[in-house]
């Protein structure tokens, strides 16, 4: 039935069945699923491009507040670079803390974007269509921030280029044995790939925006569209390139957080020196990253009136995803603690007791509640997953939990080396707090501005998805189904 209709009339004009019972079923399917609820491409484009160009009062207010916080970040960084790292709460035992916590956290956030985009694209999960670009933009800005973090953390940041491999008068290359060198390589690869991947996907949408825009936007899009005309040849090339990127970027993604974990796992620090850190960090990254994507989706939906695109089904699916990642993460976390608990190495016992009953216990238990108890208690319910405020609440808690988890690993564990004389506690001071606030603001600012500059919903992917969807009738029931076009 669906196939015949699509031959006769465009997909957005498909009539409802005459039978009222079947018609009700079709209506329900259309209400639930974005890809079944086809509209003319012109209308779909308007739903994205319209709100994008309207800069309301809230936008300017957000711009000022977030811009102010970002400026504070840069000013604090300048102050710290001028005064010396001593303005932070770091001490001779805990030489890494706030910035490396942020670094790990933001790399983690950066994971989900490309994962949702690339992995779900490879697996042909069509529902991801409206989410992918918001997730990718989160990846790009989170990675940019993550990239600055090791720089902010350096004692002599003005010499940062000494860590880059380039021919120089010192005739000295970076040390390939240092995990920091692997780090720089992995993150730089990932950042470049993510930016290219995102930009390629944007091209057709920029071209659509170019046709509708006027004034400075027209000029901007004309440049950004790189002369995209939408010929068959161009589409074929785009499809091939995106596929290559999708397959290529997934192993890169796994490598990045594994390498980040090696910054810790390769050291002699008790509590860090653990072979499980690689997969454990990757899963933790996806966990916090998917949570962050949910938050960004909810904000964009509200700010840009994207109710048509981002529906219950998307939040529901992301909620399930979050729950599965929570299970996986707990598996690794349990492993990471079971072994030290079992073999009772003295220093690891000290750290373990610190978490369970020492001064770090409030942090540890908050983390367990936010990361395990509440997600497990709520996310099994479809009601919670489909309610946007409830799901965003859980996702925010996961952010808090995962931030604390990184804080416990980096800033607390590091204070307990083997010799008790060196034991120390790190207490954050104003510069770290301002810089941390500032980078969070910068990520939100980046996405806010980007969502007003480029179509944050991939118009062409939605339209393409809608063209390929149909319904099947089996007896008295109608089911959503994919047509044979793929």
């Amino acid at each position, binding site marked *: 039935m669906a196939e015949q209709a699509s031959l006769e009339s465009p997909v957005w004009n498909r009539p409802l069945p005459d039978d009222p019972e079947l018609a009700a079923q079709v209506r329900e399917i259309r209400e639930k699923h974005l890809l079944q609820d086809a509209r003319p491409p012109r209308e779909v484009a308007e739903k994205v491009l319209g709100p994008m160009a309207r800069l309301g009062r809230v936008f300017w207010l957000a711009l000022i507040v977030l811009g102010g916080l970002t400026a504070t970040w840069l000013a604090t960084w300048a102050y710290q670079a001028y*005064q*010396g*790292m*001593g303005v932070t*709460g*770091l*001490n*001779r*035992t*805990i*030489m*890494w803390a706030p910035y490396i916590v942020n670094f790990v956290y933001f790399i983690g956030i950066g994971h989900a974007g490309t994962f949702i985009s690339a992995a779900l694209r490879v697996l042909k999960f069509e529902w991801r269509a409206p989410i992918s670009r918001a997730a990718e933009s989160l990846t790009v800005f989170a990675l940019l921030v993550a990239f600055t973090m*090791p720089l902010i*953390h*350096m*004692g*002599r*940041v003005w*010499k*940062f280029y*000494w*860590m880059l491999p380039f021919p120089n008068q*010192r005739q*000295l290359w*970076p*040390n390939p*044995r*240092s*995990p*920091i*060198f692997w780090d*720089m390589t992995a993150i730089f690869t990932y950042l470049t790939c993510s930016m290219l991947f995102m930009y390629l996907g944007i091209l057709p949408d920029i071209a659509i925006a170019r046709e509708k825009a006027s004034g400075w936007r027209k000029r901007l899009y004309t440049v950004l569209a790189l002369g995209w005309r939408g010929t068959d040849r161009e589409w074929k090339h785009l499809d091939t390139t995106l596929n290559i990127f999708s397959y290529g970027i997934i192993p890169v993604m796994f490598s990045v957080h594994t390498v980040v974990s090696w*910054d810790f796992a*390769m*050291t*002699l*620090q008790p509590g860090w020196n653990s072979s499980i850190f690689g997969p454990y960090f990757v899963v933790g990254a996806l966990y916090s990253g998917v949570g962050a994507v949910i938050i960004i989706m909810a904000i964009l939906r509200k700010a840009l009136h994207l109710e048509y695109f981002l529906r219950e089904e998307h939040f529901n699916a992301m909620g399930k995803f979050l729950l599965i990642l929570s299970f996986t993460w707990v598996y690794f976390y349990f492993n990471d603690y079971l072994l030290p608990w079992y073999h009772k190495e003295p220093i690891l016992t000290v750290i373990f007791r610190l978490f369970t009953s020492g001064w770090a216990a409030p942090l540890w238990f908050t983390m367990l509640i936010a990361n395990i108890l509440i997600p497990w208690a709520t996310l099994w319910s479809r009601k919670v997953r489909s309610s946007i405020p409830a799901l965003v609440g859980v996702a925010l808690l996961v952010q808090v939990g995962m931030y604390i988890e990184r804080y416990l690993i980096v800033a607390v564990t*590091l204070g307990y*080396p*083997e*010799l*008790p*004389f*060196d034991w*120390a506690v790190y207490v954050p001071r104003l510069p770290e707090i301002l810089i941390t606030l500032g980078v969070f603001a910068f990520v939100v600012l980046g996405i806010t501005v980007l969502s007003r500059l480029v179509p944050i919903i991939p118009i062409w992917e939605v339209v393409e998805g809608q063209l390929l969807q149909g319904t099947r009738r089996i007896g008295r029931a109608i089911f959503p189904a994919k047509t044979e076009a793929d």
Partner: protein
Amino acid sequence: MSELETRLLDRGQSAAAAPKTELPSHKWTMLIDLDKCTGCNACVVACHVENNVPIRSEREVIRGHGQHWIRIERYWEGEGDAQRATFLPMLCQQCSNAPCEPVCPVYASVHSERENLNLQVYNRCVGTRFCGNNCPYRARQFNWFAPQFEGPITEMLNPDVTVRSGGVMEKCTFCVQRIRRVEEDALVEGRPLRDGEMVPACAQTCPTSAIVFGDRSDPQSQVAQRLGGQREFQVLEHLGTAPNVYYLKAGGSDGGAG
């Protein structure tokens, strides 16, 4: 020009006078007898003066920004009246298998096979502090601020030692500037290095001679003679860092205390 000739030229001596030999290799080793250590901290002061180690304010030291290339770690043992302090002088252990070396992205922490020393190249350091984290002894000191020397201390700075800038890592060098001097003196005079000729500042100052320094590869040296006893141990030996600082346990057969 050989390394030796360059160094002699730096000292104003004719390169032609340099003997046609390579610099000999050494296994510089320190032995600290904890039975003799009284925890007086004289070594700490001597080290500060010899090596231009910045002196931080009381407030900064409380915040954990104190910089000491050698420090006396004090541990309490026992309860009540029986409680007593034991002292563990802690300095860079000059590990043969140093964890700080591979993690540095810019080769600021490097190994000298010839001298058996772990060297820190200050002006190459960018301050990632990875080495500091990876040092199980926490022997590496970071310049949290640019060093400031007040009053007459500026007149007392040792001209043989660099004053490090802010944001770089530094650590005990086994007084490498003194090693260089005695090595070259010996070469110019055309004789092998004598045991006891090279004394680092801490060992020179120690009132109880708890610190002994020397070349382990010379079997006649005091260090080599005293190694291998029952009291000998290395701190965190199980980590496999192979330190070149050996300790002798306190409270030996005489039943003495630490």
